[in-house]
C-alpha cells in the first residue's frame, strides 16, 4: 500500500543545500511520525515541499502518491484540501475572527450550503474547545486559543493526512496531548486514525508514547530514530 506521505531523497540539512544528506522517510497510513530538529535542520520547509508550495532542491515528496506541484492549478488546490496543514505560527488570518478562520476553507473549498458549513464549524469549535472565544480576532486571543483554532481549521475538511509544523510550541504538555488526540481523530470516516507528520524542535514530555515513530534530523540532514 502506498504511504500517504513519502519523502524521497530531499536534502534538508545545511539550509536545504543540495550536498546535505538526503532525507528519505515514509509516513504510513494511520501512523503519527515526528521529525525533530533544530531551526537549521530545514524541517520548516518540508510542509511547503509536500503541499507543492515550493520545490525541493532535489528528490521528491509525494502526497497520496502524487507530487502536488506537478498538477494543474485546480487539481493542485483540490489535493491540498485533502491534507490538513498547520503552519508554524498558526497562519490564521488577522482580519477574521477565529470562527471565520475555521470556516474559510469550507466556504472557499466546498460546495456545502451555509447551514452545513456553520454546523461543521460549530462541531470543530466545540472539539477544539474555542467556542467561547470564537468571535475574537487572532490578536485578541491567547496563544493557546489561536493554536486550538488553527487545529480546528486544519481539521475542518476531516483530512486523512495532517502536516503539523511546530504544533506544540508554547503549549503545556496537557494541552499538547489533548490537541494531538484531537488531531489523531479517534475514528475517521474510514474507521481509522489519521496519518500525521509532526515537525518541530521538540515534542513535549509525555507525547513520545502517543506517536508511532520519532526521528531526529541532524544539522547535516541525517536521520536518527529515537526510542518512543
Amino acid at each position, binding site marked *: 500500500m502506498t504511504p500517504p506521505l513519502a519523502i524521497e531523497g530531499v536534502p534538508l540539512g545545511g539550509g536545504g543545500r543540495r550536498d546535505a544528506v538526503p532525507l528519505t522517510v515514509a509516513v504510513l497510513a494511520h501512523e503519527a511520525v515526528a521529525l525533530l530538529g533544530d531551526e537549521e535542520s530545514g524541517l520548516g520547509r518540508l*510542509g*511547503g515541499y509536500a*503541499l507543492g*508550495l515550493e520545490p525541493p532542491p532535489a528528490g521528491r515528496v509525494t502526497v497520496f502518491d502524487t507530487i502536488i506541484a506537478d498538477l494543474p*492549478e*485546480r487539481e493542485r*488546490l*483540490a*489535493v*491540498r*484540501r485533502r*491534507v490538513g*496543514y498547520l*503552519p508554524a*505560527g498558526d*497562519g*490564521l*488570518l*488577522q482580519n477574521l475572527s477565529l470562527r471565520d478562520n475555521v470556516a*474559510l*476553507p*469550507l*466556504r*472557499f*473549498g*466546498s*460546495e*456545502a*450550503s*451555509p447551514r452545513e*458549513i456553520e454546523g461543521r464549524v460549530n462541531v470543530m469549535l466545540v472539539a477544539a474547545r474555542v467556542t467561547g472565544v470564537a468571535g475574537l480576532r487572532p490578536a485578541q486571543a491567547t496563544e493557546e486559543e489561536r493554536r486550538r483554532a488553527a487545529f480546528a*481549521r486544519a481539521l475542518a475538511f476531516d483530512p486523512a493526512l495532517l502536516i503539523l509544523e511546530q504544533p506544540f510550541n508554547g503549549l503545556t504538555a496537557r494541552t499538547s496531548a489533548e490537541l494531538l488526540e484531537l488531531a489523531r481523530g479517534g475514528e475517521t470516516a474510514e474507521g481509522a486514525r489519521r496519518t500525521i507528520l509532526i515537525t518541530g524542535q521538540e515534542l513535549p514530555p509525555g507525547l513520545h508514547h502517543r506517536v508511532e515513530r520519532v526521528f531526529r534530523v541532524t544539522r547535516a540532514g541525517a536521520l536518527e530514530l529515537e526510542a518512543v
Partner: protein
Amino acid sequence: MSDPISRLGGSTARRLSRLGALARFGFGALRSLGTLPAAGRAVALRVTLNQIRFTAADAVGLVVLLSGILSFLVISQAVRELGQLGATDFIGTLIVVAIVRELGPLITALTVAGRSGTAIAAELATNRVLGEVRALEAMGIDPRQYLVLPRFVGSLVSVFVLLVVFDLVAVGAGFAAARFNGMVAGRYFEIVLQSLALKDVWLTVAKAVTFGLIVGLVPAYFGLAVRGAPTEIPVATSRATVTSIVGIFLCSALFVVIA
C-alpha cells in the same frame, strides 16, 4: 560593459514582461471567479462591499472638495477672462472637455490610487509577510479569489462611482462660479449641455473602467509579489503607487490619441 542601446532594450523588455505578467495576473483573477463556490461568493461579496465602503464611500468628501475647488477656480477665471473677449460660450467646452472628460477621470483615479491603492498594496504585502497567503494556498484556497478579486471589483466600482460624483460636483461648482461672476443660470446650463456630446459620455465611462482596472490590479500585483521580508512592504507599496500613477497618465494620453 553593455552599450546604451542594449541597456535600453533590456529595460524595455523587462517592462513589457512585467506588463505581460500583470495581464496574466488580471486574467487569472477574473477566471478564478468561475470556480468560486456559493459560500465563497458570499464571503467575496462581503469583502467587496467593505472595499467599496473604504474606497468610494469614505472618499466622497475628498473628491467633492477637490472637484468643487478645481471647478470653481477654473470657471471663475474663465468667466472673467473669456467675458472680456465676449467668448463666455467656451465655458461649456471648458467644463465638458477639460474638467468632465480629462481632469475628472485623472484626478479621481489619482485620488483612489493614492488613498486606496497604497492600502491594498500594503495590506496584501503584509498578508504575504505574515504567511497568510501561504496558509490560504496550503488550505487549497486560491488567494486570488479571496484577496485579489474583491479588491479588483471594489476598485472598479469605486472609481466609476467617484467619477460620477466628481463630474456632478464639477458642473455644480462651475454653476456657482458662473453665478458668482454674474452669469445667468439658464445660460450656463444651456452652453454646458450644448458642449456635451455622446462621445464625452462613453469616453468618461471607458476611462473609469481603464483606471479602475489599473488601480485595482497594480497594487494587488505588487503587494503579492513580496517574498517575505517586512522591509519589502514599503518598497512594494511605493512601486505600486508609482506604477499606477504612470499607468493612469499613459492611458490618459492614449485616450487623447485614439479619441
